[in-house]
């Protein structure tokens, strides 16, 4: 009887232990959602763009998914592991995405540099054309200035019209003056930004008053001529300086001839070449 009771006790102990051991386990099943996590991971692993770009995170996700796939008796633990696995797959995916974007930057920056270079080249070409046009314009101007027989002075470009334009004591232009004045008019019509000052000068023969008024009338005659050639009157200022501003001596005939003159000063010439 004693041995029998002993064996009964032994059996009971084993049974209790077994029951207790399995107490916190129910039938073990693969947790819900583990398959989805696995599929998500496989999708990432089979993406040729992403698969190689986050090796550490993908390995991490792989072991988390494997842990989540283990059949669990504890449903809550299973769900917890599935949650962790799912998040880790997403982390790996986001990291791979970041890496891919970073890797794409090299080619993006090359593209941008290419576009920038193209645009610079074009800009340079345009600038070259502009320069050429400006040079052409400048050359035209220089040629015209030479033709006008102009002198560069501090006041601007000065064109001296000799007394041959006028008969002695008269303020009417001679016909021969027109060639020279036509060049000036066409110059002014081409360069609308220029204004001119026309100054009449005389020699010292005659009274001051009559010399001033003669020089004024001669300057006005030039202005009138230019206005007839379509140069706007507000661009022309005509003054009579009389005998007060000689360029040569009044003691000799040739000096007096040099002093009898009309000067056309083209202002603003020095400010730009356009």
């Amino acid at each position: 009887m004693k041995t029998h009771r002993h064996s009964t006790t032994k059996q009971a102990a084993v049974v209790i232990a077994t029951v207790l051991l399995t107490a916190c386990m129910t039938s073990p099943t693969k947790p819900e959602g583990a398959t989805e996590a696995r599929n998500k991971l496989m999708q990432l692993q089979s993406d040729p763009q992403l698969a190689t770009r986050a090796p550490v995170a993908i390995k991490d996700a792989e072991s988390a998914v494997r842990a989540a796939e283990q059949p669990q008796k504890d449903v809550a633990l299973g769900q917890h592991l599935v949650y962790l696995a799912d998040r880790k797959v997403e982390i790996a995916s986001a990291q791979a995405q970041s890496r891919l974007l970073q890797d794409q930057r090299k080619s993006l920056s090359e593209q941008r540099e290419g576009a920038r270079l193209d645009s610079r080249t074009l800009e340079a070409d345009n600038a070259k054309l502009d320069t050429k046009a400006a040079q052409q314009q400048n050359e035209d101007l220089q040629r015209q200035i030479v033709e006008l027989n102009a002198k560069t002075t501090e006041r601007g470009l000065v064109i001296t019209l000799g007394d041959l334009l006028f008969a002695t004591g008269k303020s009417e232009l001679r016909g021969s003056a027109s060639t020279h004045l036509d060049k000036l008019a066409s110059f002014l019509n081409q360069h609308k930004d220029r204004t001119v000052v026309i100054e009449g000068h005389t020699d010292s023969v005659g009274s001051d008053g009559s010399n001033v008024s003669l020089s004024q009338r001669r300057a006005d005659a030039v202005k009138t001529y230019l206005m007839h050639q379509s140069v706007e009157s507000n661009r022309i200022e005509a003054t009579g300086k009389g005998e007060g501003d000689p360029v040569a001596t009044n003691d000799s005939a040739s000096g007096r001839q040099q002093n009898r003159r009309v000067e056309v000063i083209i202002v603003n010439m020095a400010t730009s070449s356009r």
Partner: protein
Amino acid sequence: MKLTPFKPNATATLATPLLIATAIAALFTLTSCMSPPVPPTQELQAAESAINAAEQARVADYASPELGEARDKLAAARTAVEQENMMVAQRLAEQSRVDAELAAAKSDAAKAQEVNDEMMKSTDSLKQEMQRNTGAQQ
């Protein structure tokens, strides 16, 4: 297996060393699949530093719901520690950590995307500008 039911009079005399050992083992087994008695300090710290890292990376600027979840779960984990529900606390802390890490990873990707978009945009505008210039020239 054949089970022999216990008799009350037999139970009284069952105080054999074997049964005591079994009982201790059983208790041990029971407690082992219950909550561990110590707070999951390591997990809590890991969650906290993951959240801090995400915050420093200005994840909030990129409107991440994951970061909010991470914060909520860390708070819940701390409450669970106070209630001595250490198993729950540990799992919440672990989830909080992955949430924060995901928030950071997503925000990195969003920022990277933004930079690339900006680059593409500037390339496009250069090209467009050039086409306009070419058009003006011809």
